[in-house]
């Protein structure tokens, strides 16, 4: 029985809830191939009209930042307050800005 273990790759599932919205990650599943992953994702994650479009992506195809590296990895944006509109004081009587 243990020979069957881990035989099917893991897929991550993304659903677009309706037109105009991004696909959002909803969970994962195991499937033998892409087609089966798509059919299983439909049955598992859209039983109540939760989506109009599905993406399935092999989990091992995803490159991710590591939480352990969080601080240095995201540091470059940490000290750039001038990227935010609130950095710039504008007199209150200036309209439409």
């Amino acid at each position, binding site marked *: 029985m243990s020979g069957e273990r*881990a035989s*099917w790759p893991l897929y991550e599932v993304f659903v677009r809830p309706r037109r105009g919205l991004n696909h959002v990650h909803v969970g994962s599943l195991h499937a*033998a191939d*892409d087609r089966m992953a798509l059919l299983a994702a439909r049955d598992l994650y859209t039983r109540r009209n939760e989506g109009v479009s599905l993406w399935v992506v092999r989990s091992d195809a995803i490159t991710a930042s590591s939480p*352990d590296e969080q601080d240095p990895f995201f540091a470059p944006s940490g000290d750039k307050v001038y990227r935010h509109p609130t950095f710039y004081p504008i007199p209150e009587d200036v309209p439409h800005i």
Partner: protein
Amino acid sequence: MEASAEAQSRFEAVIANEQRVEPRDWMPEAYRATLVRQIAQHAHSEIIGMQPEGNWLTRAPSLRRKAILLAKAQDEAGHGLYLYAAAETLGVDRAELTEKLIDGRQKYSSIFNYPTLTFADVGVIGWLVDGAAICNQVPLCRCSYGPYARAMVRICKEESFHQRQGYELLMTLMAGTDAQRRMVQDAVDRWWWPSLMMFGPPDGASPNSERSMAWRIKRHSNDELRQRFVDMTVPQAEHLGVTLPDPALAWNEERGSWDFGEPDWSELMQVIKGQGPCNAQRVDRRRAAHEDGAWVREAASAYAVKHGRGKGSAE
């Protein structure tokens, strides 16, 4: 894994600040092990939970009831899969969890070891068993482990249908003949105490509760949740016109809650140990489904390899 003091304090800060622990964060091994055990047991309960009601699928009294029951069983399969997926983020393998279930090394909720003798049981399971499950599960939506909490949000949304279809089924029977009303009362008599046992042993006899609450895996004690369930259910029983089989049930003005009797904890212990009416049957059925499905899994793997569309069963 040896924890650096920094990793340990980062973990504790995440818990204290009501943030969520995510899969690749460092976490204490005992926290991981507790979650694996709890999520696996929860997943197994959903999967085994298809059987008692599945018993009535081919004998549902109308096409409407049959379609509803099928949808409910499909949801339970889905809930099991959400939970297995959440467990896998902790580094365990779904197939291994299935093996542990059918080898008896991991448990599922004792409630599913009771038989469904009449179609009224389908209604009472939806009303009481799913109602108790909702009481247990709603606080889990705020569990400190992110993937488990997210799975629970999805599950709770769907669970409400389960409870309402049960109650509606019972209202229909109660509006029927005397024999149908007796059938409902009989089902309530059989399921009431096991439903109360679903919240686990009393607080004094629940050794791991305190730690789970400190980790914010658990938010309320077993007895708190049990009381909440009783308070919710009594007015529903009155509306339905059934009697809950507990002579000690009485409104306590001072507490603003219902007093109720003590479940027979020795019965719960017997069922947990495998002596319930249906333990062997449930696990045998699950094992047979797993073994009978082996050729389908093998065929799908072979197809994937042949068409080069998946890694397939390389091992």
